């Protein structure tokens, strides 16, 4: 498709809380703004049915409701949204070219807010049974496991959130964790330990997911005793962490040892005019509020760069 290359003041990569907050600021400051999102708007937080720690919502707010409101707010100020995946960025002086799978755009400043991708478990059976018992979203798929036994793999906040969410549907939940303590915050740990439906399998890893047409059981191993066992389950919910979505940026920007983007306190990256915001930034506390805060900081400094 030989279309003329569209020009913007600011291109934002990623439509999670960081990118949406940045868009509210740049669009409201009258910079022409394009947000590019590979999936749908909302980011990781759409997996959370109730966000309890975002200020201003004493009753909590659904992750999707929160981010749809953010998207409306940015759109109202003139931000445009494109559903496509960014595959590369090229910087030459003050002009940046952002490549997507279907076209390209130029911008004076780019804000990278691509967040993190969920990690896969990486065991046999995972891919084959995705959508046939293997799931990455308890709020979406919990209801398909009414009165069934399920496993949740992981030990952080995401895993604990998923396990608690599943208590609404499943008859029995086994949380499988490779260590002997959880990384989740105290309040989440208290909730999970108080729930009679949830059992925790410590020091345990999943070796294989088995079944015929759908998941029927998983093979486990205790990492200390090396003993193997099988657990009959109909569902396996994977929440084993996430990885910064920077695969296409390795040659472009300075990254830290886990692949997160290194930025200074103005959220400038190693390339002038490219900013990083949210979970994708090295040192982020990986929460909605910090992502939103990053978005604002990156937007204001991107604005200064565009005008300067």
């Amino acid at each position: 498709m030989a279309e003329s290359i569209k020009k913007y003041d600011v291109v934002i990569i990623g439509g999670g809380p960081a990118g949406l907050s940045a868009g509210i600021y740049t669009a409201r400051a009258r910079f022409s703004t394009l947000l590019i999102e590979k999936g749908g708007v909302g980011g990781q937080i759409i997996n959370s049915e109730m966000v309890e720690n975002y200020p201003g919502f004493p009753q909590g707010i659904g992750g999707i409701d929160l981010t749809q409101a953010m998207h409306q707010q940015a759109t109202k100020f003139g931000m445009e949204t494109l559903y496509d995946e960014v595959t590369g960025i090229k910087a030459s002086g003050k002009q940046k070219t952002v490549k997507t799978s279907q076209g390209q755009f130029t911008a004076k400043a780019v804000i990278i807010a691509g967040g993190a991708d969920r990690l896969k478990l990486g065991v046999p059976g995972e891919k084959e049974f995705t959508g046939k018992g293997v799931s990455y979203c308890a709020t979406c798929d919990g209801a398909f496991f009414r009165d069934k036994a399920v496993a949740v793999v992981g030990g952080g906040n995401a895993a604990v959130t998923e396990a608690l969410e599943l208590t609404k549907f499943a008859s029995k939940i086994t949380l499988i964790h490779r260590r002997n303590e959880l990384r989740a915050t105290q309040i989440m740990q208290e909730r999970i330990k108080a729930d009679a439906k949830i059992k925790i399998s410590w020091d345990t890893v999943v070796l294989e997911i088995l079944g015929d047409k759908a998941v029927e059981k998983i093979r486990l191993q205790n990492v200390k005793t090396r003993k193997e066992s099988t657990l009959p389950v109909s569902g396996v919910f994977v929440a084993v962490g996430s990885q910064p979505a920077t695969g296409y940026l390795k040659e472009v920007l300075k990254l830290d040892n886990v692949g997160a983007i290194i930025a200074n306190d103005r959220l400038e990256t190693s390339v002038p005019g490219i900013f990083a915001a949210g979970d994708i930034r090295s040192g982020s506390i990986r929460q909605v509020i910090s992502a939103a805060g990053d978005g604002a900081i990156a937007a204001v400094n991107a604005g200064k760069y565009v005008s300067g």
Partner: protein
Amino acid sequence: MSKPVEINEAKFEETVLKAKMPVLVDFWAPWCGPCRMVAPVVEELANEYEGKVSFVKVNVDDNPKTASQYGVMSIPTLIVFKNGQPVSNIVGFRPKPELKKNLDTALAAG
């Protein structure tokens, strides 16, 4: 402008299985964040494929029989039907270009 139409179990045979045109069925539920995320993308596709593919939505909460008949255990799931047969099955939300590619392949086949 064509928008995906919400249908129920009773209408499934007539609207999907007996349709002359290929039909993309979006299995979803109101409590599913990624389903609501993918909805605007599916709406864009419905416009782009107007006249070539019809688009319908099935709420799995209200229509559990249809969902289980086609083995839907994770949503969103998009299934393309041609001549009453499921020919392509996409689980979870995917980038729009990937959805288009999948749809084009399904349309081209047989």
